């Protein structure tokens, strides 16, 4: 990523060269961006703030998927189920143990990480499609367990339990405008962690598994250990995202989704935003969420223009528009040099994007 710079402008140390934010305009962009995001609840509508909140915790889940699928090249179709684990864990430790919210989120992440390790074990033996099948098992087992195991704790067949409103330092985060800051804080922390992973020993080991696992082994990377680390990190982040989602929705359980479709959509968001790039989760999640709105608005506008076919337009316009825009998105993504998709992952990626489009109908 060699950006052109004015003559005479150069780094004076490797620390400078390796820094994430290093140009004055990058600092300026960061400050302005943070100011806008921090002040959004003051000037934004309730709808905007609520949507942004959803985008924030979804990005965290997709960041986890990015570590696993984008960096390490291991496809997972169970991210939503891992979010469910995180949501339940956080709900249970706050309700029954009275843990404070930040600690509960951390515990939720760690617990989900351990569950993820369990489902990562098959990655020693299988790759590609077959690993996707193995993670699919998680996506079916976990929600099933949540409805059938410990009905007193997990809500049984009702598929939901209530989650308390987080209270920190005497402030109750019941309002979306306040809760927004919790999600934002978590997102900032996870973004820093993910950035650091991608530029250090851990991240290089993960990418080397994706790009050439034989060579990685010869360069001293223990494949199994590092794949498990990737699974742990992915589920850790899913757990954090799940905890945030549960507290935001004040409830958790299969009633709130967490199904296979959601897992595939998370993967679709990642593919759309860019596998294996740190910006990918941000672009993908924001694009998919905002496009839904854009499609709705454009559809309404068109139906006013063509009242004769109004009913048909409103039904079919959204998926068509969505599919078209995503195709454009993908074409431009693919044209750009970057980590290529392995052959057996391309199919899964296409399927994931199709699921996102289908979801619009």
């Amino acid at each position: 990523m060699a950006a052109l710079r004015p003559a005479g402008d150069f780094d004076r140390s490797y620390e400078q060269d390796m820094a994430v934010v290093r140009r004055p305009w990058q600092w300026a962009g960061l400050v302005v961006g943070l100011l806008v995001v921090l002040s959004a609840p003051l000037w934004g509508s309730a709808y905007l703030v609520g949507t942004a909140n959803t985008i924030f915790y979804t990005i965290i889940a997709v960041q986890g998927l990015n570590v696993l699928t984008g960096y390490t090249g291991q496809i997972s179709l169970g991210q939503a189920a891992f979010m469910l684990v995180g949501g339940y864990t956080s709900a249970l430790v706050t309700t029954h143990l009275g843990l404070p919210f930040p600690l509960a989120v951390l515990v939720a992440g760690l617990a989900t990480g351990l569950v993820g390790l369990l489902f990562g074990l098959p990655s020693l033996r299988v790759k590609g499609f077959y690993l996707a099948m193995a993670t699919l098992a998680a996506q079916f087992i976990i929600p099933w367990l949540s409805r059938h195991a410990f009905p007193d704790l997990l809500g049984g067949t009702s598929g939901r339990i209530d989650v308390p409103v987080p209270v920190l330092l005497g402030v109750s985060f019941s309002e979306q405008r306040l809760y927004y800051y919790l999600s934002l804080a978590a997102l900032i922390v996870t973004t820093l962690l993910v950035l650091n992973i991608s530029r250090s020993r851990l991240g290089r080991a993960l990418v080397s598994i994706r790009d050439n696992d034989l060579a990685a082994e010869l360069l001293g990377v223990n494949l199994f250990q590092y794949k498990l680390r990737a699974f742990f990190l992915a589920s850790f982040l899913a757990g954090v995202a799940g905890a945030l989602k549960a507290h935001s929705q004040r409830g958790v359980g299969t009633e709130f989704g967490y199904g296979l479709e959601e897992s595939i959509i998370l993967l679709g968001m990642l593919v759309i935003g860019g596998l294996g790039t740190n910006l990918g989760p941000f672009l993908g999640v924001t694009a998919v969420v905002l496009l839904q709105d854009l499609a709705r608005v454009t559809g309404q506008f068109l139906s006013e223009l063509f009242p004769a076919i109004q009913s048909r337009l409103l039904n079919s316009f959204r998926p068509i528009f969505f599919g078209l825009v995503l195709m454009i998105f993908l074409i431009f993504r693919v044209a750009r040099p970057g980590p290529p998709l392995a052959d057996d992952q391309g199919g899964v990626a296409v399927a994931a994007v199709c699921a996102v489009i289908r979801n619009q109908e």
Partner: protein
Amino acid sequence: MDRNAAILSVEDVSLHFGANAALSGVSFDVRPGEIRAIIGPNGAGKTSILNCISGFYRPQQGRILFKGQHDLTQTPTDSIAALGLARTFQNIALYTGLSTLDNLMAARHIHMKQNMLQSMLYWGAAQREEVRHRQVVEEIIDFLEIAHIRKAVVGALPYGLRKRVELGRALAMQPDLLLLDEPMAGMNLEEKEDMARFILDIYERRGVTIVLIEHDMGLVMDISDRVVVLDFGRVIADGPPDAIKQDEKVIQAYLGEAN
């Protein structure tokens, strides 16, 4: 011919895939500080023996002693790097999605100490470690004259440069023994001469022992100290280049057509 002095000794190695014997009773040794060439016609088992040494293939018979004490046929593949052995591949096995710099940094994996948590926090010791290893890597980048592609993504580089980056990645592991599988295949004369110069420099200035598979006879005879010739999975000759050139069996099997 002190056998104990050998940095690598391949002893009676046999490898077969089903009924096909790839290697039958292959034995040779590599002494510290020499360039050892392995030659032979296509399908003779040159790459197979390299794959046995680097732990990809497990021979059914025989052993491969590294530094007199480690039997590589019994060592897990991912532990071989730390013993001081590195290799390049016939058809380039770089991390195509990473930059040249990151490919070389990835080779520092075995020399770096930071754990998962330190990598995630990237603070203090971890950052200092990254900078320290960056200095080692930059020195290799200078040596191989690839500074201009330092931050280019490797997948987009031309073939000759990728070969050079792969050599750099192997060097960044700071091995005692370097296995090169056809480092000059598919190169033009100029690129070949560059590569030969780098190999000689690695050997002379860095004191790395080199095992080389190469098809260019003139070049092999010029730069190697001793040559082992394989044909149909057997050693048919072993000795200094001058003796190999005169060897009847070698001429019949291989050189006859080439020269």
